[in-house]
């Protein structure tokens, strides 16, 4: 789900979304790579956070995404700022909800 589909400037509030990782093995290398590749397609700054961890990390860094150690059933928060922030969050949420097309 995304809260808003509008674009935001770096100063305004980010667009946010949330989705639950369904794969029984969590966010393995392949889905992590898919997620970062998708994120890189947008100009917006995109960050994700795992519900078990307070840290926001760069969704365009496969290394950082892997190190989140997202497990099955974890809820991921996504936030984006800048050009295309709305569509970026929507696309990220959709990819996770489609279970990374796996």
């Amino acid at each position, binding site marked *: 789900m995304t809260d808003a589909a509008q674009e935001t400037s770096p100063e305004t509030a980010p667009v946010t979304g949330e989705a639950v990782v369904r794969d029984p093995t969590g966010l393995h290398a392949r889905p992590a790579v898919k997620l970062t590749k998708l994120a890189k397609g947008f100009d917006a700054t995109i960050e994700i956070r795992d519900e078990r961890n307070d840290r926001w990390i760069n969704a365009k860094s496969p290394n950082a995404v*892997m190190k989140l150690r997202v497990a*099955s059933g974890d809820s991921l928060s996504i936030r984006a700022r800048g050009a295309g922030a709305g569509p970026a969050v929507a696309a990220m949420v959709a990819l996770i909800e489609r279970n990374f097309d796996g």
Partner: protein
Amino acid sequence: MVEPEGERVIEGIAAAEGLAVGPIVFQHTASLGHRAAGSPLEEREALNAAMAEASREIGVLVAGADKLAAEILEFQGALLEDEDLLGAVLGQLDAGGAAHDAWAETIDGEVAEYRAGDDEYFRARAEDLLDLKTRVLRRLHGAAACDLPPAAEDGILVAEDLTPSRFLELDWSLLRGAAIQGGSPTSHVAILARARGIPLVVGLDAELDDCIQGAPAVLDAKTGRLVIAPNKGTLARIKRAQAALASERCAAEALVDRPAVLTTGDTVQVLINVDDPAILEATVPAHCDGIGLTRTEFLFRDGHLPGEDAQFEAYRRLIVWAGGRSVTIRTLDAGGDKPIPGVTPIGETNPFLGVRGLRLSLQTPALFAVQLRALARAAALGPLKVMVPMVTVPQEMDRVRALLNDTLAGLAAKGVAHARPALGMMVEVPVAAMTADRFDVDFFSIGSNDLVQYLTACARDNPAVAPLADPRNPAVLELIRRVVEAARAKGVEVSLCGDMASDPDLVPLLLDCGLRSISVAPALIGRVKLAIQRHGGGAG
């Protein structure tokens, strides 16, 4: 033992079974040598060029890769385009650092983080980073360091180490096997070699040098050794073993999709063990009679406690995969050698004899209730059997049945779709094995790994006592026989799901104990079926 003249035997660990005879292709891990650092701008350009080359090489490999290889390679490829990682390296270059130092230090820092976790999957990713580190460093030091060894026909690769991507680059139509000083049987390279049927020995216990280059050798990846300059006797023995192995593989392959039938006409159920659902992608459901053991610990990796829906989804997938065949799911077997931070007790002097398996589940009822609810919901989708580990006395199973009844009543009250799964126990505690007839259960499954450990008083994780932990010990076989008889008398099913069932040499003994259902590692279905077919009638 006196070594025959001239023959040199190097011991190692078998990581991928097989035998090979051929000349040694020795790949000396050349020291990368000195590399002079240039100006920050030159270093930046050198790094960019090396990374671009590495990216191109990985891209070529991905094109011909299977699923596992692609996962390893794509992650490495993505790391080369990781702006955070690159940012850290470039920061060091701007401060006047050399490209090779900055790259190596940054990656080493990441590797330490990956290795710090207790999640095996996560730790294994450290291998990917080191693999990539080496590839880029080689490029930084110049193309000469990237050359592959000359692949002699039928050669046996011998090296100090072998990275996964290097393994994938080698021409395995020419090479017949590999032996390395480093590595472990659980490394990516070992998994890749097993998947391709390439014999691999790791952990070679010897210093290697160039003088072995081209020497005739025998690679015995059954016992885990490399024999350099083998004598005639060794060669003849290995050639016979090669022929036997080839015909065995062929025969096993022919049986994999057929039911396992004894000469008496009795059918033996061959089920599979699932440690990680990822294995199901590589396994054909029709090759087995269902899933005999699912180790649900995979859901609890890294201290994670999965919710009911996440568990239900995992169980649903197993049932869908099995397509009407029975699916046995073991409730959480934490404790012992499988600690879960925050759940398993800390400071037990002997965790294998402590609060583990069902003992832990009964002490953490909220956690157990979530699993039972997810299982009861999944039972509505297909034939599901719930197996409880580490049961000692009948009262424990009575408590589990009562909890299951509460779960079913709760789901019914809320109108949630569910069904009653079969409820059985794992037989692994000796007193439970000896009093199996007293338990109110729908089925038994003998957990031979722990049963052998507890009967022989030999820790499974201590190689010093491994020779004493012999599953052939008559006491072990006698207990198995008694459990089978107890099951017959009660009219309930009995199976065996430990490592014994996956050993073709031990399968005849299990059949002699009267077992007609066993659960095995998916890769061994064919070999086990062959062992069953070759066995006579056995006791019954």
